[in-house]
């Protein structure tokens, strides 16, 4: 009985994920957090540009507030990601 390479790889990957379900889970969480953090970074940059261009005081104040929230969210996200990675390395 012969297996072609693609099928072998696929089966091995499945076996690996079966044997290592927790690691897979951690990887998924890692991916999710990383993607969201990237988006937040992009959003932060965009907000800074908006604040620089905004003339209305009220509107600028609101945008600045949003920026502060995004910074806190990023800070929290980074902490979560690093603790997740530490857990994965153990």
């Amino acid at each position: 009985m012969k297996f072609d390479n693609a099928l072998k790889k696929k089966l091995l990957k499945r076996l690996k994920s079966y044997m290592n379900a927790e690691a897979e889970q951690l990887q998924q969480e890692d991916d999710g957090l990383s993607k969201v953090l990237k988006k937040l970074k992009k959003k932060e940059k965009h907000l800074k540009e908006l604040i620089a261009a905004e003339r209305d005081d009220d509107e600028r104040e609101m945008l600045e507030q949003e920026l502060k929230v995004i910074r806190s969210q990023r800070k929290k996200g980074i902490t979560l990601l690093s603790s997740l990675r530490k857990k994965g390395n153990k």
Partner: protein
Amino acid sequence: MRNTLRKVILPSIMLILAYGFWVSPDFKEISAGVAIFLFGMLALEEGFRAFTGGVLEKILKKSTDRMWKSLTFGFTAATVMQSSSLVSVITISFLSVGLIGLVEGLGIVFGANVGTTTGAWLIAGFGLKVKISSYAMPMLVFGVMLIFQKSKSMKGVGYILVGLGFLFLGIHHMKEGFEAFQNSLDLTAYAMEGIAGILVFTLIGIIATIIMQSSHATLVLIITALSVQQITYDNALALAIGANVGTTITAVLGALSSNVVGKRLALADVLFKVCAGIVFIVFMGPVMGLVDGISSVIGLADDDYTMKLAVFHTIFNVAGVIIMVPLINPLIGLVTRLFKSEPDIHAQPMYLNEASLEFGDTALEALRKETARIYEKAIGVIAKGLSLDKEDILSDAKLKQVIRVHGKAVEYDIDEVYEHEIKSLCSAILDYTNRLSADEATSRQVSRIRLANQSILITLKDVKHLQKNMLLYIDSENPHISAEYNRLRQRIAKVIRRLENIRSQEVSSTSILSLDALKLTLEKNMGLLHGRLDELIREGHISADMAISLMNDSNYTYSIINSLIQINHNYLKSEEGTETEAEHRIALNREEINSVLSDEREVAERR
């Protein structure tokens, strides 16, 4: 254009009425009677509303869940009250507040028609007339006393008593007003033989009953006229048919202030009586034979026309019910087609169906779409509840400007929309989720959708509470209180607008996290208001009552905004994925929001 027309029509009608009052005191009395009667209907509905979902609803449901039970209920009620029209009117108010359905309502009305025949026997046999209208004044007195009580059910009973009192009082004034016409009614002048006589006397019967507001009164008139041989026996029967048709006027009047379901019942009542009337006019000959047959069986003399009239009246109503009960469904179909209900059309779920229930993903999508639809509706209700316009809130116009444009308080019945539209849709969602068999992940998402719907209901209840004082203060002469209430309106409108922007963003743009900025603003504004409130009280700009109202209403505003955020949080979160999960973990909790806020305060103080 339509608005201008509306603005013109009302004052014109009022002017015409005022002229009428000036010219004819009788017309004034009749109009006042109608107004009092309609006010009675409103009070009656208010009273029954207090019992929705309670004991009365259970009793009514149990005593009308089969057609024979509804008929018996109507029969007993009409026998006790000696008025089928009063039973019809009360049934209309049951229907209006959703205590019973149209089928049950029709059953009661049909039963009441048979019950009212006992009156003819009492009048013909004993000359007895139960005059329930003499209880009007005590009812009003006891009713008002009960309205002032704290208990909700006591208040409910109070409103029912006051409602009945006003109904009787209204009928009394209408009768008084019509008395001038009644005296000029000389039946002998119209004496006619054959079919022409029957038709003319049917018409006279209708008119006389409308004038006297009671088929019993017409029956007394007929019996008196018959006993002094003012009219022939045929004409008397025609008058009785007319009286039965004419008695529907009370139900029609009652339906004027009722919603579409009440109007359907009134129309069905009219159709029922008109149909029965036509059948009896067509078969007048055989019916008279039947009356004679029954009369001789029960031992009535051939010339005892008054008792024969009672026999006829009973046959007429019993046969009418026997003919109409099998036709009840086509009758309901007809009146429903004639009176289309706008709220009912909206209140039907659009996406929830049996087919989608089979598949978890499709069912979830259907639930999400339905929830989004309810949310859209709820936003419209909130906007109107705040005397604003949804389109304006969601436009690009500056909110301060929007608030200024809508500076006048506009009354809006949130309860009505809540009961007829939002609540029924939310229960449809709940029912659908209960029937859904789903895996663990889907169940989690479904439960979030359920929470979102729950928050929608809470939001509307809060807006209802807030609306009370808002209507009082947004255009108040005290600029300080009016500014504060307009600020509350603006804050809610701002959040609605911001949430709409977040919802219209692509899914990939961290929508859940965007809600955190709103949470921060919510906490910040709450703190600011407390500061301002202290100052307003200290400076004596607002009274203690105003301060208490403002304190309560700022809490309602807080709760409304919080619920709006929660709705969107749960709605957005119901679409599961690794990123959504990550967003949920990153989202700031209340303590974290407050810590951002205190950092901000520190920076501001250092400046």
